[in-house]
């Protein structure tokens, strides 16, 4: 996977030189080790700023909404599914896009590595299967599979679903991953246990809305939490308001969430926000056999009616 960068630069340079796109959205080195940031490359001579490693966690689809230019975009499995979501929701046109597919074996979780390393990380290197971090005179090597982001470890769509260019060979999809083990554990709790479990999880929420801002699905011009006429939900951190925010945000992502993990990565308080969206993902799969972002020609379950829809909870 680490060898993609030459091909990424080559494809991007070609697209920009031939003026097939106005810009390429990709990753560049971040200001800290193990961080990359999204970048918009507009000139062929700048393509060398693009990078690719196991820290390209950010979902680039979040930068596509309502763009007018022609865009080349690097897409992992999850990004490509979110791009398809945007196509379905008319946030961008397919003709505007050149999707540069990057088959992905999972991105590593910086929080896990930092925790296990116990020092500030000054230097970072990686090979195909391993990463090595250095800092404070200490060096430690991790196997990538041990420090993957949780959503990557259980990912079953590693290859881009749709692409025009491919920067490496397609990778083997993970089969037999148990995607919903944690959700089933919560479902098995009794009603007060559930309530207290989430009360505890959400108690640290500072309502910074980083999860919402990082999410490629959350593109409403005015979010319901920001509206004041009417004010749907209180703006402080009263537990009832915090709960309302998380509940409704998750519900707005029902049948759309691709479990890219952007919300959880963005959370400064390490709240496992994905527990909400994953539950809805599980319901959509079980009730409608639906996984988001796999087919641009299919309407999502929540905006279609079929006579044989399961009527859960309707009397």
């Amino acid at each position, binding site marked *: 996977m680490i060898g993609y960068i030459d091909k990424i630069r080559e494809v991007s340079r070609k697209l920009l030189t031939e003026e097939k796109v106005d810009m390429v959205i990709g990753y560049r080195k971040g200001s800290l080790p193990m961080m990359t940031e999204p970048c918009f490359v507009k000139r062929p001579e700048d393509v060398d700023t693009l990078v690719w490693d196991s820290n390209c966690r950010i979902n680039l689809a979040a930068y596509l909404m309502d763009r007018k230019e022609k865009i080349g975009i690097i897409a992992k499995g999850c990004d490509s599914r979110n791009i398809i979501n945007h196509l379905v929701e008319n946030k961008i046109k397919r003709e505007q896009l050149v999707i540069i597919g990057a088959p992905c074996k999972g991105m590593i979780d910086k929080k896990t590595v930092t925790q296990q390393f116990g020092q500030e990380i000054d230097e970072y290197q990686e090979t195909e299967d391993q990463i090595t971090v250095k800092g404070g005179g200490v060096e430690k090597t991790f196997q990538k599979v041990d420090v993957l982001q949780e959503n990557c470890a259980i990912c079953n769509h590693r290859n881009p679903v749709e692409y025009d260019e491919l920067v490496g060979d397609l990778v083997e999809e993970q089969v037999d991953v148990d995607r919903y083990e944690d959700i089933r554990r919560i479902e098995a709790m009794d*009603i007060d246990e559930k309530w207290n479990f989430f009360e505890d999880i959400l108690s640290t929420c500072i309502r910074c809305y980083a999860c919402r801002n990082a999410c490629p699905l959350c593109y409403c011009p005015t979010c319901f939490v920001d509206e004041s006429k009417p004010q749907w939900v209180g703006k402080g951190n009263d537990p009832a308001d915090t709960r309302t925010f998380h509940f409704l945000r998750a519900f707005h992502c029902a049948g759309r969430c691709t479990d890219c993990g952007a919300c959880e990565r963005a959370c400064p308080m390490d709240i496992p926000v994905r527990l909400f969206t994953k539950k809805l993902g599980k319901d959509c799969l079980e009730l409608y056999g639906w996984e988001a972002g796999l087919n641009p020609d299919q309407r999502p379950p929540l905006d279609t009616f079929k006579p044989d829809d399961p009527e859960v*909870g309707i*009397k």
Partner: protein
Amino acid sequence: MGNLLEYMGIERDRLHFSWVSSAEASKFITVVKEVTASVKALGPAKKFVKDRRQVS
């Protein structure tokens, strides 16, 4: 939506959905009876309630 509410710890029987046509008076009565009965059985909702002192 009921599923997610239950998942978060709100009793399933607090939320009811039904299709009732304006011509279905008897169905309407049945539904209302069912709703009130199941909500009464659950008792007052203590979750999602803000303390008055904090609100004012």
